[in-house]
């Protein structure tokens, strides 16, 4: 695996000049994923922040072949690209070794793109799907998604006089992907380049469908200071709000265990979307998030304990 110095000397495959916000975590994810994947990579993207900010005609940030077709179909689009590749290789028309990576936000992955993603995973295409999960529809202005945590303030599940933000827990998409029996699934964060790039490298070394759910702090939608993006990601791991782990052939391995598991309030208090949760009268909401986080973490520890340790 390349160290930071080596990575920084690579040719940029996702260049600057895009229209991402200051402190955008999505572009960080795209850049680091491509650093790990290298130039022999074809990218497909769902409609969303990443696509909108990086491909305003006649400009593009992508120094690798890139295709966007619609919102709900990155899984199917990259399937078509990979199928063509397989056909050409079989026909002896093409011999370059390629990676196929699809990017989708949580809206394009958890919600509208779930069917297309599920189909692609079930069919076993040799692809890596990376969800840059910022827990809401940020491109359209912070609407709630299936990934939005309970109690968060979004524009379609707002905090009001009688409602207290989103009323449902977030969906566990990583578990859904694991349930597809794919050879590699993982969770990572924007803010830990080593974790992300090593998981991408590992995923791409495996034949078949792979999925990485990358937790991506969004300064606009979560409302925090732009210089805190990486910190917000690391805090999500330190509080176990977003555990870092990977599942290889069904065997769980937690790739980061915080020495001291911080309370979720440490992460919550830096974000405007949880402002309401911090009011004393809403303590139950904060407690609920802590309990949800603890339950998920304990369940994960058990799954790891029940797994065959990886080499």
């Amino acid at each position, binding site marked *: 695996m390349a160290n930071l110095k080596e990575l920084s000397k690579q040719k940029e495959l996702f260049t600057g000049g895009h229209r991402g916000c200051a402190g955008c975590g999505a572009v960080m994810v795209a850049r680091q994923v491509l650093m790990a994947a290298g130039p022999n990579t074809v990218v497909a993207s769902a409609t969303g922040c990443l696509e909108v900010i990086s*491909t305003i005609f006649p400009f*593009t940030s992508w120094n690798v072949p890139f295709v966007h*077709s619609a919102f709900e179909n990155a899984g199917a689009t990259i399937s078509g690209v990979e199928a063509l590749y397989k056909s050409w290789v079989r026909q002896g028309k093409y011999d370059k070794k390629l990676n196929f990576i699809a990017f989708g936000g949580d809206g394009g992955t958890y919600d509208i793109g779930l069917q*297309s993603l599920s189909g692609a995973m079930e069919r076993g295409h040799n692809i890596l799907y990376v969800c840059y999960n910022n827990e809401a529809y940020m491109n359209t202005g912070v609407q709630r998604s299936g990934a939005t945590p309970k109690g968060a303030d979004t524009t379609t599940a707002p905090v009001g006089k009688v409602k207290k933000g989103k009323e449902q827990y977030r969906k566990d998409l990583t578990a859904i992907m694991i349930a597809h029996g794919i050879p590699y699934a993982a969770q990572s964060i924007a803010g830990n380049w080593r974790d992300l790039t090593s998981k991408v490298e590992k995923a791409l070394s495996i034949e078949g469908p792979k999925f990485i759910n990358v937790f991506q702090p969004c300064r606009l939608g979560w409302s925090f200071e732009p210089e805190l993006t990486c910190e917000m990601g690391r805090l999500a791991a330190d509080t176990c709000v977003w555990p870092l782990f990977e599942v290889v052939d069904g065997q769980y391995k937690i790739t980061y265990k915080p020495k001291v598991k911080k309370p979720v309030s440490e992460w919550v208090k830096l974000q405007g979307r949880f402002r309401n949760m911090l009011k004393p009268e809403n303590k139950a909401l904060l407690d609920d998030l802590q309990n949800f986080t603890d339950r998920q973490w304990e369940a994960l520890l058990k799954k790891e304990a029940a797994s065959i340790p990886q080499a």
Partner: protein
Amino acid sequence: MAKSNILARTGNEAMAEAMRQINPDVVAAYPITPATEIVQIFAGYVADGLVDTEFVPVESEHSAMSACIGASAAGGRAMTGTSSQGLALMAEMLYVASGLRLPIVLADVNRALSSPINIHCDHSDTMMVKEAGWIQIFSENAQEAYDNMVQAIKIAETAKVPVIVTTDGFIISHGMERIEILDDSVVKSFVGPYKPENYLLNFDKIITVGALDLPDYYFEHRRQAAEAMRTAGAIIMDVASGYQKISGRSYGLLEKYKLDDADCAIVAMGSTAGTAKVAIDNLRAKGLKVGLLKPRVFRPFPKSEISDALKNIKAIAVMDRSDSMNGQEGPVCLEVKAALYDKSLNKPVLDYIYGLGGREIRLDEIENIYNDLFEAIKGKSKDKITYLGVRE
């Protein structure tokens, strides 16, 4: 003319046969009645190693078209088949495919749209996507379905415009007919290798496909796509002329049947054109000067060819196998009227909406339409829009 093989084939089998001979790089498809057979038969070809195709059995028609878009953008030949609700579900992606100028070919077996749900023929599905930027070619029978498919791939790749080839559900798709199939090698050399100008898998020229166009570029790109459709007619004629040389069968944007000296004419597309030809022969035997205009190509709409063909006709009936639910005539009639208006041709044009949801169209009904037309020539008023064969 090359040696042909005479076979008994249904429309679906004929289309699958054409696809086998075209040997596309990728077929992505999802089952739907009555088109299922096309891709089912094709999957058999894949299983038997008769084609080089990567078959992607997707989880929806939306994904079928999305995967075709991915494969086509990557540089390959991509095809699919569908019907009705499947075409409706694809609709979003049909616009994307044509906007990206990807030469995908789609076999559509015409079937009514829900609701109520119905699996039988009408043209509502194809008409629903008539503005999607796809060339639309209608087939009268299984032979035309086969011939149109072989020509479609060449048309699409030359024009850089995707093509829908239609048959009529069950009537053509499941009807067994005598058809002539070309030799594999003849089709292979007619179709030739696909050489895309720009494609994803070309790492010597890295491209971004599907970029965001804002008000400073979108209009120009749409204008180019519109122009490609406008000039596709000439390409369709060129391809037809090449096809005539290998098959002996000639095709145009439209077909005229006993039209040149006719007083009255019916305009009809698809299988009904075949029925109309028999009605015409019956009436001609009685000395009535009647004829047929069959648009083969509905997109691009052959406007001037249609008005030229109809200029000496005294009364015209358009048979619409779908209803636009727009408070006025069906889609084909409206466009025929617009074509006539451009040439200042003011004559009776009657619209017959018929056959919805597979309702049978009989010979006597078509003969009665001609009677209506002769009455209209005499100046006897007649409803402008008739729902033919419906209980009211």
